[in-house]
């Protein structure tokens, strides 16, 4: 069985056994997730139903395939997964059957056929060290491949924290000179969908928005869709009342942990992490890290790897204090030195003191 490549989205969904009603429900959910007005759900349904499958080219750079795993596994066979099937994924190394020259041909054909119209998804950071030689595919550096593929793209989705900010490859000391997609490409609309990995529905949400309105959703300062990255994990966390009451788990197996108290003291980065995990959750809404008993790592924020350690509370020093002991010594030495100087001054004054006698006064 193969689906019709030129069929409209809804036709393909119906062919896969997804009813129109289910589809409408999905669109309404998506619209409300993205904080769009109720009418947008309908508009989205209409637009998506009519939409031809857009060509999507997915290039993996310095990455771990976690982003692909996230999307292909966690939601399958949910409707998000099916929507995802409904795009024309013309090049994705992990998922495509082709390899070698065949794969390269597929890539170039997709780029030529859809010049100026395809959506380019990048996962992984771009190595710039040694002219990009740290990461090559088919004998070409990621840097070259990105520049070439970006030229014909209508929009670029930087998927995952590596593509969005440089991510783990960029962690100190960044041996490969890893950078984000937005550090290289300046003349195309780029949406960052950070996370390690990102939430699947965020990706489909952005694609749906693009198909419906022909534009990218509203982005924040870091290029993330505001609808999903507008609030912190902490503000949406179901454990938040415990934070406010001052009830904290002190270790991963204490009374507090068993009672599901706040994980702030165990290093949760929820207060400074903007993502939708707390509301959308993972694995089809089954659970999410904090619900599973582990603090948020802050994976959708830039440089989360170098932000002072996963198990240190946010209010604790990010690095060990290096200078304080020396400073204490210097302070003590300064104090003693001044004491000696003061004493010497006093002693000198005392030595120079001349006793005044009655005879002196009568002179």
């Amino acid at each position, binding site marked *: 069985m193969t689906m019709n490549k030129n069929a409209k989205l809804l036709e393909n969904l119906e062919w896969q056994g997804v009813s129109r009603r289910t589809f409408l429900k999905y669109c309404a959910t998506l619209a409300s997730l993205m904080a769009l007005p109720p009418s947008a759900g309908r508009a989205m349904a209409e637009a998506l139903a009519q939409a031809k499958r857009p060509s999507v080219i997915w290039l993996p750079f310095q990455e771990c395939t976690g982003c692909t795993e996230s999307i292909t596994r966690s939601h399958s066979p949910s409707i998000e997964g099916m929507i995802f099937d409904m795009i024309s994924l013309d090049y994705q190394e992990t998922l495509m059957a082709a390899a070698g020259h065949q794969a390269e041909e597929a890539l170039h054909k997709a780029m030529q056929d859809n010049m100026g119209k395809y959506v380019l998804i990048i996962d992984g950071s771009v190595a710039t060290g040694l002219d990009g030689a740290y990461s090559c595919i088919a004998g070409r550096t990621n840097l070259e491949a990105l520049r070439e593929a970006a030229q014909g793209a209508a929009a670029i989705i930087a998927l995952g924290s590596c593509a969005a900010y440089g991510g783990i490859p960029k962690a100190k000391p960044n041996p490969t000179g890893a950078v984000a997609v937005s550090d290289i490409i300046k003349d195309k609309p780029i949406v960052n969908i950070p996370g390690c990995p990102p939430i699947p529905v965020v990706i489909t949400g952005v694609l749906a928005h693009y198909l419906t309105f022909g534009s990218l959703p509203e982005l924040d300062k870091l290029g993330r869709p505001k609808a999903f990255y507008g609030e912190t994990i902490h503000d949406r966390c179901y454990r938040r009342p415990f934070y406010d009451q001052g009830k904290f788990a002190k270790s991963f197996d204490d009374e507090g942990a068993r009672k599901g108290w706040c994980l702030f*003291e165990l290093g949760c980065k929820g207060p400074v992490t903007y993502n939708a995990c707390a509301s959308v959750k993972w694995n089809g809404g089954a659970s999410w890290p904090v619900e599973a008993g582990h603090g948020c790592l802050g994976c959708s924020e830039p440089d989360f790897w170098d932000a002072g350690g996963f198990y240190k509370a946010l209010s604790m020093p990010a690095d060990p204090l290096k200078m304080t002991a020396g400073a204490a010594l210097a*302070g003590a030495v300064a104090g003693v030195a001044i004491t000696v100087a003061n004493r010497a001054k006093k002693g000198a004054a005392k030595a120079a003191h001349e006793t005044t006698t009655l005879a002196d006064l009568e002179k």
Partner: protein
Amino acid sequence: MNEMQFLTWVRGPGLDIALSLFVLGVLWRLIEIYSLGRKKDLSAPRHKPGASGWHTIARRSVPPEGMFKTSPVSYVGGYVFHIGLAIIIFLFIPHIKLIESLVGVSWPGLPSQVVDLVTVVTLAAMIVLLADRIMKPTKRYLSGFQDWFTWTLTFLPVLTGWLAVQHLLLPYTTMLALHILTAELLLVFIPFTKLFHAFTVFGSRWFNGAVNGHKGVPV
């Protein structure tokens, strides 16, 4: 530098620098002040000088007769904001966590809504005191650069901390970083401004009381 890097800097190298300058300054000034000494008073003490010292420590925490009526704002405002600061600094759980990680001691904290309320009251008290300092000609006349400067240094960490918790003006991450930065500025300036009274207030009261007691004027 993005906001996360800013936050990591103030939590890392920034904190290291600030704490180092703070510790350096505090030790330096404490040793300097307490090693100054005084000439030995050879006269026979007219009162037990030590007892008078302790008495003065307590006595000067209470307004002298009539003074409360003369300047109630200074007394009430002063008490409210000093106690408020102590509660905010020592009973807000993230702060306790910081102290614990630095010196290894910890104690139970207060629910964050209580600290939030105390913060609002503290900020209000500080603003009223500032207004009073500006409005009252005598206080204004007595105020120098340090008085305005130290007020600002103290006010900013409280304000930014509250704004961060309330998610006002700037994103939380940026505001939290600004909060830590302003607290670090405060730390750096404590040893070298009149804010050093945090360390010397009771020592100097004791000394004054003891000297006066020796002279026969226990107060």
